[in-house]
């Protein structure tokens, strides 16, 4: 099998022994041991496997690893700053005590981060539409919504200052 060169969270990885059509999810989890990205449905229905590929929120459960070659992959482990400073969304998730079981939350945060990155001024309706592919079985939607809204406000004030 060909060696695949991946860029994940700013680090280079040479992956061998993995078929090119292997979903990125399983390479992240089983090969690179980045288990923050979760498995939920395997058919892009729940969003718990969401990562960023070149900044785009991507369901890694159905995304062949070969397509990620030459692109920047960011997982939940790489969202915080290099110095460990949490992304405003991660901090907002803590401040709003969002999680119950927490299993879907890495995917929710990655989805929200990509949305706000692309559209910092997103309206509530746009955010709701953008988040509609991420399921939460525990039903923490109210808090997710509140956390995104407060992180958005913080990001906007930061953006205004810089």
């Amino acid at each position: 099998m060909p060696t695949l060169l991946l860029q994940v969270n700013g680090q280079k990885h040479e992956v061998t022994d993995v078929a090119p059509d292997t979903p990125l999810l399983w390479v992240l989890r089983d090969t690179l041991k980045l288990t923050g990205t979760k498995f939920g449905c395997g058919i892009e229905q729940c969003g718990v496997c969401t990562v960023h590929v070149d900044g785009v929120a991507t369901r890694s459960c159905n995304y062949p690893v070969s397509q990620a070659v030459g692109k920047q992959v960011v997982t939940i482990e790489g969202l915080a700053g290099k110095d460990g400073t949490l992304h405003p969304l991660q901090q907002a998730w803590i401040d709003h005590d969002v999680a119950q079981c927490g299993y879907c939350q890495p995917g929710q945060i990655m989805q929200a981060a990509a949305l706000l990155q692309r559209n910092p001024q997103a309206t509530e309706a746009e955010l709701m539409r953008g988040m509609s592919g991420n399921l939460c079985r525990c039903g923490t939607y109210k808090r997710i919504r509140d956390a995104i809204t407060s992180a958005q406000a913080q990001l906007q004030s930061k953006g205004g200052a810089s």
Partner: protein
Amino acid sequence: MSSPDTHALLDRRGFLRVAALAGGGLSLAFLIDGSPLLAADEAKPAGAENFRPNGYLTISPDGTVTILSKNPDLGQGIKTTLPLIIAEELCADWKRVVVEQAPLNPALYGWQGAGGSTSVPSNYDNMRRAGAVARTLLVSAAAAEFGVPESECRAESGEVIHDITGRRLGFGALASKAATLPVPDAKTVVLKDRKDFSLLGRRVGGVDNKAVVTGALCYGIDVSLPGILYAAFVRCPAFGGKVKAANLDALRARPGVRKVFIVEGTGRDDELAAGVAIVADSTHLALSAADEAEITWDEDKACKDSWSGFAAKAAALSGEAGKEYQKSGDAKAALASAAKIIEASYTYPFVAHATMEPQNCTAHFSEGGLEIWTTSQNPGSGQDLVAKVLGIAKDKVRVHIIRGGGGFGRRLMNDYMAEAAFIAREAGVPIKLIHSRESDMTHDFYRAGGFHHLRGGIDGKGRLSGWTQHFVTFGQGGKDSRGAGMGAELFPLVVLPDRSVGKTLLPLGVPTGYWRAPGSCATAWVLESFLHELSAAAGRDHVEFLLELLGEPRWLPPANSGALHTGRSAGVIRLAAQKSGWGTPLPAGRGRGIAFHFCHQGYFAIVAEVTVGADRKLSVDRVVAVGDVGPIMNRSGAENQVEGSIVDGLSTLWLQAITFEEGRVQETNFQDYGLLRMAKAPRIETHFIESEYPPTGLGEPALPPLTPAVCNAIFAATGERVRTLPLVKAGFKA
């Protein structure tokens, strides 16, 4: 604190033992609840060999307080709540508290489980006493250091303070000395007054929050071991089927596949089902090979059930009464004298648990026995099962309790533990078994569906007069299938003077289990929808009708641990009416509905406000929930459980049904078994009446009244009564 409660949980004897830590500091071992083992020990003279602590608290010289949390956490937040209770009485600085998950050790810890909303009520008192004993020791140690009377010292936020001189010492500096002092009697140790609480009742974030948002929290599916391989397990689509033949060699020839073998199973789904096990180098290779398995099944003894078949049988039973199992007064006479009689039949489907983390389990078998990492809600019974299936002694099964991605009752069953254990022994290396979503959804232990035929009367004054109910459910030999019963003392049944409830059991091959608020989660919808049919037929206001039924404040039935207090019930109904603006006008197409339910010792009234638009487009705009579960432990966690229960209830009533044909479940993944999406989640307002009764749990009781509240609101908006769930099948669009 005085309370008229007859079921106080405050009279258990607390055992404590204090030890000095080798490197300095204090270790306090204590007893949390009264398991049978502990009860037996109580009869014996006290001695080290009889002491079976089930909780641990240590205070290091640096002031760090470490609390072991004994019960599994699957999102209900118990890993935060229980330590918080100890920390409150200890007067600890919560920022200096580290919480760790205890491994399974029932001999040491008693029952370690997550079920029945029991963790808070069964642990509250002794946890407080444990914290208070440690605090008393630290205060004594400080008083000795300061050379002042203990009465002049107080503990606050990780320190003991002598206000008169302004001296203070941290718990860390005091711990070693405290460990040498005589231990006060936990039974008489002075507890804090609730008004002085600084942690309980406040908003405290989950102890694992940072690990959740950084992806660092280890769930069952994230467990890894050196040399680990990955396993898939293919079970017969029809429950109970066995393997006749399979393309084993073709599967073995696939890249990365290490082992393929047939598992005969024990013949029971709740132990070890039959199937084909595949062990491979990665999860992807194992799951892909499972997709390619061609298996001829022996279905001679397999389940042949079909949902439509059951529905037809139940319909044919509508004119019958079933075997009477609940009775009061004379329902027949009351109905005969009624001015108006209402008849209705209600049907709810089977539902799956669909935990976000599919079932999985990691196990390693070696000569010494089996080591297993599980997300079980009942790991102790999993240990028993694994020992039984492998035919090894229970003490050879070492169980690690791992955070689960949701439970809802699914993980009270331990089938995945038996599978992982069996496969690990055959594989000879550590394996992680992962079920695909499809495998998980089609092999659940489902919440049973059910059918209810009801007749109720209204007298000349608009009061309820007589109630008969025929509950067609599942079971055999007079015994309900697991989780398929209806609580005997549910509201309104428990308050009805003239009722007759009968039951017919249909034999069932589909495995059932416990699903959030078992016995209540679906029956509350039937009972409280039909109650609304009666009040509507009588032209009565439903709140007034409910309050009239409840009557004077009293316990029903008296002297029973599951008893309902009519005064507390009326309290949550009144507050829900007030907070929701009950009775104020709404525009056309909108409606408001209320329902009340009592279960798991918790009282909840819910008011839902809905809009039904053109094309039956439904929107649940607002939900007001009022609960009385006694004092609140962690307000943030408590509200989160209520909000989650409401969304869970709404997902279920609107979107979910498991159907089966020829013993095969038809729904396989989220595309045909939906979960509510964020944009459809209602505005939720949660209120608590913090009565002086002992605190009770919140994992379950807020869910049951949601469904009837929404359906009563749909009736208010449209005049249409929902008698079959889920709503999507009745054409209500999201």
